[in-house]
């Protein structure tokens, strides 16, 4: 008797779901405790039979653009699609979610893979080669740098099948605050001729000032975040951390790196043209830049919309190149970044999924929204090369897209030119970035003068090598 009651109770707990017909959108949000942006799940429904799961991470504007894109796609294929589950998570949680999905053997049909993760995903058979599914004209219209980042032949990156269509190709240029230049009576940097190390230091010294006369510096030439803003200085002096086959850490016997790193830490330790280590922990460079205390600050392609927003950054600014060291190839060099849309190898609907990622990656309307023509907020450089080189540039020039006028600096980094070059950092090709994190951890001690560069290199090199060996071993294990 009582058992029956219990059973009834259990059954009552199962809720019936009413079927949705036609096109509909349902969104549910879950607030993350530790992250600022909320993860969301959106369902787009059609009248067909196929159900596609999409999992990515995105900022708010990007999410809106992709949601529109998927809605249009669902509408256009509504006799085929039953439902598209579009799940957006935070970048922090993305890796954990994917690991859980792989362990449970339940991958979404469409997800992000970065160039750094490509090999392990392909080696373990998680991603579908796209050669047979995407149209060659689309592929040919991608930036060459990016196409090769997602090609892999089982041995080398840059050859063989294409596995992803890019979400974006980003780069990290340098921005300067024009108002501070005007106040100091300095000439603006020449976008056609990036500064040398010495010229840059000289300008930074002139921009470093005590503006209110209280005896303390409150305006600095430049602020650098070690994790992101250091490598462009080093790369621009031809410096690398690893040997060519990425098996040995080479920093102690490496003049290019040592000189460049010395120059970089001296900006803080000796010349004092950046906030001190202590000041930097108190208030990061990004906030100080937004507050108008900093002359030069790094600007990613994704930062442009924020810097163009008067409410966020009420100063005039423009783009310029990173300073060039004496011993490199003379080009101002920065790092490129990318993440790509991949299709699961086990998807039931490879054609449909490939078509959807083509639309997310290279649909003209979508790219217009993401790069700012229709939204006024530029989150990225368009993935479609001929649109980027023509209309996009024109729309920046005529002011439809709010952008810094020296857009060519960004194009220089992405396309390569006599003055500019963009490269993927070495961490892109090692299995994890622990060797690099190990190098980063102790830099504040060098910048505050407690340990000289030589000693630091000697101390950290074996630790980095150990971490790299570890990564190589994992890479080998990853293919088993």
């Amino acid at each position, binding site marked *: 008797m*009582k058992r029956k009651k*219990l059973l009834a109770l259990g059954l009552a707990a199962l809720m019936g779901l009413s079927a949705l017909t036609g096109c509909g959108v349902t969104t549910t949000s879950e607030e993350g*405790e*530790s992250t600022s942006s909320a993860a969301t799940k959106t369902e787009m429904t059609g009248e067909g039979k196929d159900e596609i799961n999409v999992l990515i991470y995105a900022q708010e504007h990007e999410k809106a653009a992709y949601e529109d894109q998927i809605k249009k796609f669902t509408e256009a294929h509504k006799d085929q699609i039953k439902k598209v589950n579009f799940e957006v998570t935070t970048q922090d949680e993305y*890796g*954990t979610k*994917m*690991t859980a999905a*792989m*362990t449970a053997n339940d991958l979404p049909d469409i997800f992000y893979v970065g160039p750094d*993760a490509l090999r*392990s*995903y392909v*080696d*373990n058979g*998680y991603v579908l080669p796209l050669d047979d599914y995407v149209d060659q004209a689309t592929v040919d219209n991608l930036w060459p740098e990016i196409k090769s980042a997602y090609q892999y032949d089982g041995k080398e990156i840059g050859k063989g099948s294409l596995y992803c269509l890019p979400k974006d190709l980003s780069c990290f240029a340098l921005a300067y605050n024009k108002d501070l230049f005007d106040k100091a009576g300095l000439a603006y940097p020449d976008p056609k001729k990036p500064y040398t190390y010495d010229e840059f230091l000289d300008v930074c010294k002139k921009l470093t000032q005590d503006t209110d006369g209280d005896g303390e510096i409150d305006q600095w030439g430049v602020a650098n975040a070690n994790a992101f803003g250091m490598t462009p200085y080093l790369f621009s002096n031809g410096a690398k951390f690893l040997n060519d086959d990425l098996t040995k850490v080479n920093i102690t016997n490496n003049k290019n790196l040592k000189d460049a790193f010395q120059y970089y830490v001296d900006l803080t330790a000796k010349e004092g043209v950046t906030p001190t*280590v*202590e*000041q930097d*922990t*108190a*208030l990061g460079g990004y906030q100080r830049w937004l507050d108008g205390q900093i002359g030069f600050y790094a600007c990613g392609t994704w930062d442009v919309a924020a810097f163009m927003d008067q409410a966020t950054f009420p100063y005039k600014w423009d783009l310029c190149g990173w300073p060039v060291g004496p011993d490199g190839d003379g080009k101002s060099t920065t790092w490129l970044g990318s993440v790509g849309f991949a299709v699961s190898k086990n998807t039931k609907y490879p054609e449909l999924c490939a078509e959807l990622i083509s639309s997310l990656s290279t649909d003209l309307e979508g790219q217009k929204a993401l790069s700012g023509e229709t939204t006024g907020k530029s989150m990225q450089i368009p993935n479609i090369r001929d649109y980027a080189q023509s209309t996009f540039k024109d729309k920046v020039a005529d002011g439809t897209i709010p952008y810094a006028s020296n857009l060519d600096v960004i194009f220089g980094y992405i396309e390569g030119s006599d003055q500019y070059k963009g490269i993927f950092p070495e961490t892109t090709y090692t*299995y*994890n*970035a*622990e060797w690099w*994190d190990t190098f*980063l*951890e*102790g830099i*504040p*001690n060098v910048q505050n003068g407690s340990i000289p560069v030589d000693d630091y290199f000697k101390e950290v090199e074996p*630790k980095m090598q150990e971490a790299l060996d*570890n*990564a190589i*071993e*994992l890479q080998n*294990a*990853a*293919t*088993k």
Partner: protein
Amino acid sequence: MMQKAVTKKHQISEMAKREERWAWLFIAAPFVGFLFFMAYPIGFAIFASFSRWTGVNSLTGNLVGFKNYADILTDAKFWKSMVTTLIYMIGIPIGMFLGLAIAMGLNRMKHTRRFFTTVYYVPVVSSLVAVSILWAWVFNYDYGLLNSMIKALTGIHGPNWLGDEFWVKVAMIIFMTWKGLGGSIILYLAGLQNIPRDYYEAAKIDGANGWQLFKNITIPLISPVTFYILITSLIGGFQVFVEVQVMTGNGGTNYSAATIVFYLFDKAFNNSQLGYGCAVAVILALIIFLITALNFKGQDKWVSTMD
């Protein structure tokens, strides 16, 4: 004895039997929960700890025996984070001493006790992430409450609390003591109120002074509370993670703020060494188990009960 219990069971009424069946059902819910959400993951983690599992590759195809364990025990970062974890535990006796002192003070208050207990308990029920963010601002080098006070009082600029390898440990100990204080106060207060008044009166008649009352009555009779706080703080002390992650981000300059659990997280999720991370977790579980067992073993020597 056993036999007796069994025969007794046979004599129980129909109603009692029915109730027992219900009892099983009630137990079943948490037990099934335990199997799915505890036993299975524990078993899985132990198994994965023998593999070079990255989350992407095959778990069973990369079994390496005890190699993860050997690597952990020779990794300088592991020992560094272990030492840091132990250093943070300096906060435990400090917190217990302060907790007892404040509880004794509160115990004498009649009307304001409830108010102050609430005040001290607020940090315990607050979100750890939220208070960590708040304290990161308290410890801020230029704009922090602490350094502003130091500057106002002494004229000297205070230390770089979260950036300096030494001071970050002091900062963490201060934070953890503050966060845990309310818990020990509540427990000590309950312990103090359970001590019968007669003991003190009898001792006073025999001419005991305040210190003797404290040393010979209060301390022994609240020792079960002290024991409980010690055990839970030690276990909690080995599991510190959130405050390090929130306040220092990358584990501090030269990994100086990283704890064992931070190291585990860093390896498993920042560097895709999930199998290795599982091995760290197993080692941590063993350490906690061992220390707790030792504590229980040693309790006869100093923990007294009232009966």
